[in-house]
């Protein structure tokens, strides 16, 4: 029987014009939409789901961040050193130029594009509110920066364990390093987004973020060096309050067991450290507040 019924190709390859099908599956609402925006933005920060061209810079910066850590580990393992050449907390301070470059390139990518191509009104015609948009974008960039800054620490940590360095010491240092880069990620992402959200032009955004980060750091370290040279060492920690990098440096040297990179290693005392922590948290909150205010006006 089966042999007598040859299958005709036409039966199986016919194209059916199925008309419009309505959707009656689940609609997952506002929280899900916010999470979708978060994951899309986070992937976008590394160029995933975007053109090949836009993958180059973030991936390159990621590699540049991790290579020195790998070399240090290799050296430590080869020379059977007792300690890693660089503290976990110090790594981000040394690599700050790369981190600044990353936030300068990716903050405008995240928000200026939506402004420039007027995609923002489309988002707000969806269930999400302006605050959800701000939270998703902020969280996404902060997470992307955490990945960037924590990955080399992980390399160092794994390397240190392979080199059979003291486990308790290394774990403690690694944990302190993670807290430090988490704060740094939140702070840098906030500053970058606030600046980028003002302009729909990506180029302006990149230039402005780089300018704010490097000029403030340059001015602060110069003033600190002058103060140190003139013997007014007391002023050094207070001057450090005025740039993002030195803020993080201050917080971690006061509370996270880091050696300060300030001139004369004159990091803030515990009392001054509290001011540093408050300044960092205040800045992060201020950035969030400014972003909310910025987007309240955008609307349709």
């Amino acid at each position, binding site marked *: 029987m089966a042999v007598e019924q040859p299958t005709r190709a036409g039966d199986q390859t016919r194209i059916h014009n199925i*008309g*419009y*099908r*309505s*959707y009656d*599956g*689940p*609609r*997952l*609402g*506002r929280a*899900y*939409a916010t999470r*979708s*925006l978060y994951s*899309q933005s986070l992937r976008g920060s590394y160029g995933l*789901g*975007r*053109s090949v061209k*836009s993958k180059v810079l973030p991936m390159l910066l990621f590699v540049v961040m991790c290579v020195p850590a790998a070399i240090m580990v290799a050296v430590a393992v080869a020379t059977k050193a007792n300690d890693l050449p660089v503290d976990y907390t110090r790594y981000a301070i040394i690599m700050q130029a790369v981190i600044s470059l990353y936030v300068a390139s990716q903050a405008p990518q995240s928000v200026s*594009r*939506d402004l420039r*191509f*007027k*995609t923002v*009104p*489309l*988002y*707000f*015609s*969806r*269930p*999400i*509110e302006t605050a959800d948009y701000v939270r998703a974008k902020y969280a996404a960039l902060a997470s992307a920066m955490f990945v960037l800054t924590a990955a080399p620490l992980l390399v160092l940590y794994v390397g240190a364990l392979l080199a059979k360095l003291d486990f308790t010491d290394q774990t403690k240092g690694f944990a302190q390093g993670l807290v430090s880069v988490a704060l740094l990620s939140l702070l840098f992402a906030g500053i970058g987004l606030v600046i980028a959200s003002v302009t729909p032009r990506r180029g302006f955004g990149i230039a402005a973020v780089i300018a704010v980060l490097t000029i403030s750091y340059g001015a602060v370290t110069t003033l600190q060096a002058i103060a140190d040279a003139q013997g007014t060492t007391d002023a050094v920690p207070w001057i450090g309050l005025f740039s993002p990098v030195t803020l993080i440096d201050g917080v971690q040297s006061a509370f996270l067991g880091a050696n300060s990179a300030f001139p004369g290693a004159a990091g803030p005392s515990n009392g001054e450290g509290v001011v540093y922590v408050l300044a960092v948290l205040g800045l992060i909150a201020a950035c969030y507040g400014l972003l909310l205010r910025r987007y309240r006006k955008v*609307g*349709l």
Partner: protein
Amino acid sequence: MIATESLSKRFPRVTALDRLSVDVGPGVTGLVGANGAGKSTLIKILLGLSPATEGRAEVLGLDVATKGGDIRERVGYMPEHDCLPPDVSATEFVVHMARMSGLPPAAARERTADTLRHVGLYEERYRPIGGYSTGMKQRVKLAQALVHDPQLVLLDEPTNGLDPVGRDDMLALIRRIYADFGISVLVTSHLLGELERTCDHVVVIDGGKLLRSSSTTDFTQNTTTLAIEVTDTDAHPDGTDAVRDALHARGVDVLDADSGLPGAGHILLLTAQGEETYDVVRDVVADLGLGLVRMEQRRHHISEVFKDSDAERKEAVGHGG
């Protein structure tokens, strides 16, 4: 679908909407008004994005002031301006927008493929949007408004920037959104002729006030207008003029045709009083020995609504002065 009750929106200097009360049922509804008439303001309020100064509005039975999120989950919106990032493909963009409307990832992909096919985007949907023509971009914008299968879509000037063929395609697509997909449509335009062909119902607003709200058949079928075109001969170098005079002599007045309507100058418009008007025209043309190129029934244009109201306004001003 949509109901507003003395809805007003006042900005410090302008009144965008002035005690607007409209009731829009299922179907394709046109929202007509000149630029600045308050169309976009109304859409913002309906999406729950901008609070009304006073009055109430309901969309799908949900209050816009308190249920904005629920409304936006069930309503699609196609903005007037460009809103597409050029460096992603239509598929990626529409999938993302579907997820932003709350569709799970698998459903978002499936609905995107379906929707793009329905709006007429095929292989090109995998290419970056930056390389699309205006017509294709409008289709992507429409697709993102339909991808979550809303109960109602708000289309803000969907035919803007399209050539005549693109316009016709878009209007046919809008018609299908209701006829085939079962999704009600509110479409804005400042071009009345378009809506006349596409909509079941037209709401005309001007200066934030409701001018008129009725079905398109009411608008255009109150009276029958006849359009007549004749040839010229040696005896009557201007045939059109000769017919006008002859008709006048028989007591049939010709409407002024040079009112910006197509073919003005060569086409005579007159109001058909009944069957006998047709006979009169035939006899007149035959007596003059002219050739009758056309004699057709012409529907009234919605633009006459504006002309009427302008005339009324002028009259009112005249009386006041």
